[in-house]
């Protein structure tokens, strides 16, 4: 905060500092009102979100019952029976797969840009990655559907053939030719590619702030570059990486268009067979069903949106706590 200027006073004993806010002019008052009004916009948004979304979701919740809505896995617009458990699990599955792929890549990439690449290339890559973090998810979705997917299908087939020991990679017992399109894994990988630049950009930033003397100290003590990274950079950057990961997780949970494009249609049951067709996502479901929804189904979509919001807010605040705790102890 601004260090307070010393007050002008004839009496030296009355020489207490004044704060800028102590004797505001008319201009100050007006300026303050404008700023408060602007800051209140955020309050208005959050209040409107709570009021309108809850109000709009009431008809569907009243029809199905709140308990049923959050514990059933069904979406039948014709009879007005809705339950989002399967969608919630599907959303978390896709986001988790995305994180499993993205975090090692992003941390490796951040280290590569900061420590391994020649400085000139590193600087260029930093700019490119920051740019990629701003690339619309639609473009990732289009690339995922038209280019990436075709290369992933053989991989899915290979995984389902050779890694049967792991339950997630097994195929369901349904007869017929297995369909590998529109699986949680493909959606998760596309979303993962999307969040790699986001996580890289934030964690690279934190890792670049490690005091250079500490790194040089580690090297001067005879440590190898990996030892320097392991003992200096990673402990220092840990909270930043965790924060970036949570940011990426939040993004992955709320990702809409990329998932909608890759999945094409939504499965409302939780599907444990992640390499096989049939995956769900709350955001993509809202996006795909919105156009032809009846008022009651619209209300159910809004209610699922509230569930999604609760999910991302929980992740966001968990991230804040984790980051706060790790920074306190390090």
């Amino acid at each position: 905060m601004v260090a307070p200027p010393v007050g002008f006073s004839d009496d030296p004993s009355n020489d207490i500092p004044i704060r800028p806010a102590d004797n505001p002019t008319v201009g100050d008052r007006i300026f303050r009102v404008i700023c408060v009004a602007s800051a209140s916009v955020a309050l208005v948004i959050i209040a409107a979100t709570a009021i309108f979304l809850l109000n709009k979701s009431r008809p569907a919740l009243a029809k199905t019952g709140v308990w049923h809505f959050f514990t059933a896995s069904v979406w039948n617009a014709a009879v007005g029976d809705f339950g989002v458990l399967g969608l919630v699990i599907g959303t978390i599955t896709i986001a988790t797969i995305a994180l499993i792929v993205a975090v090692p890549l992003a941390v490796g990439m951040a280290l590569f840009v900061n420590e391994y690449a020649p400085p000139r290339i590193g600087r260029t890559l930093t700019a490119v990655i920051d740019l990629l973090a701003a690339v619309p998810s639609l473009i990732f979705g289009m690339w995922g559907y038209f280019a990436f997917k075709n290369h992933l299908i053989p991989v899915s087939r290979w995984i389902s053939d050779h890694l049967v020991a792991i339950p997630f990679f097994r195929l369901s017992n349904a007869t017929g030719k297995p369909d590998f399109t529109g699986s949680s894994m493909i959606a998760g990988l596309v979303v993962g590619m999307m969040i790699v630049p986001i996580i890289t950009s934030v964690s690279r930033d934190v890792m670049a702030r490690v005091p250079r003397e500490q790194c040089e100290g580690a090297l001067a003590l005879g440590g190898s570059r990996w030892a320097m990274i392991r003992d200096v950079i990673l402990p220092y950057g840990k909270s930043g990486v965790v924060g970036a990961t949570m940011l990426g997780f939040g993004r992955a949970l709320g990702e809409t268009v990329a998932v909608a494009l890759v999945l094409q249609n939504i499965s409302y049951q939780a599907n444990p067979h992640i390499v096989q067709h049939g995956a769900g996502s709350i955001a993509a479901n809202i996006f795909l069903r919105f156009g032809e929804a009846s008022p009651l189904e619209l209300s159910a979509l809004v209610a699922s949106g509230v569930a999604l919001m609760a999910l991302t807010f929980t992740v966001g605040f968990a991230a804040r706590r984790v980051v706060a705790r790790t920074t306190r102890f390090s």
Partner: protein
Amino acid sequence: MTSADISSGEVLTDEASGAVPTMLRGPATARKGPRRRRRVHSVTSEVVADIQDSDDDDSPRSVGRTTSAVVVEYTLATLTAVNLVVALRMLLDWGGLLSFVVLFLVSFICFHYALVRQSSTKELAADRMTTTLIWVIGALVVASLMWIFGFVALKGVKQLRPGFLVRDMRTAGPNTPGGGVLHSMVGSFEQVGIAAAFAIPVSILTAVYLHELEGRMARAIRFIVEGLAGLPSIVAGLLIFSIWPRYAGIHAAEALAILMIPTVTRTSEEILRTVPDSLREAALALGAPQWRVVTRVVLPTAKSGLLTASILGIARAIGETAPVLLTAFDSKFMNKNPLKEPQSSLPTFAYGNIRTQSVLQNDRAWAAALLLLLFVLVLFTMARWIGARGAKRLGRN
């Protein structure tokens, strides 16, 4: 040089400094020379002696050094790995380039580790292994980024002709050529423009409230802004649609503003934090009221940073698809009025056309996606350029 020489503590004088193993990445340590050496020697003398024993030349150690031994290790590991993979593929009949690359990498890393481990410490072997891994990750990420950019450029360039930019889709259909994205560009600019005109001043003033005025609600507002930053974009669209259940460009602008406010506010607050307090204090000491301090000193100083934050906010907003489709929908025709009737925008145009089976429509979608990518690229370059210029100016002062 023996360890006894070093442990006496007299060795670390100027003529012996060449023997101190350092890897100078920045000039900082070099400048602080004498003081540093005195501090270091008691801790490191043993280590230094150790390294001296194993390394006869007196040149400084560099971390990413390439010697003939390293080249031999890499070559041997590569050859062995290739041999193993070729043999494995003959035995197991695994096809595909991907399996070849993966198998090669796994065996290469194992062989390389074993080779290095033979002649030196575990530490060094682990270092070599992670170096390989991180270079592979770097190459992988760069390759996939180039794949994405290249794919969009290649697909998009087919339809991206001058005519495409000046027509709408009034006469063109799934099978009739022609048509363009003029109406979508107009829609995108109107929606993002209105959103920016509202969200950017609000965000900057909120940042001023949070950092300069530090009002009573500051903690609560900061908490809410952090929460809003995690709001899924589709929920913003749902919110606006539940308030005004009809399609118009202005509603898309409202949804985009909700998404822009938290990001721009947070970056702006960070930027206000970089304005030196001495500037504020000087202005206050001269008797300026606070609002003059903010508008004449703080904001002008932070100008380029705030501009960068705003442009990045715009770049994020221009590619948002889901909230725009929920609030402005899409249209085949030019609709210049953002206040009523559905309005097209670049992302919804691309999405609408990519969902069809028609090749021509898909090509149009790719062209729109390429256009979108170019817009983001231009905005981003602008933001960086302004940011770099501002940083330079601030540094000179």
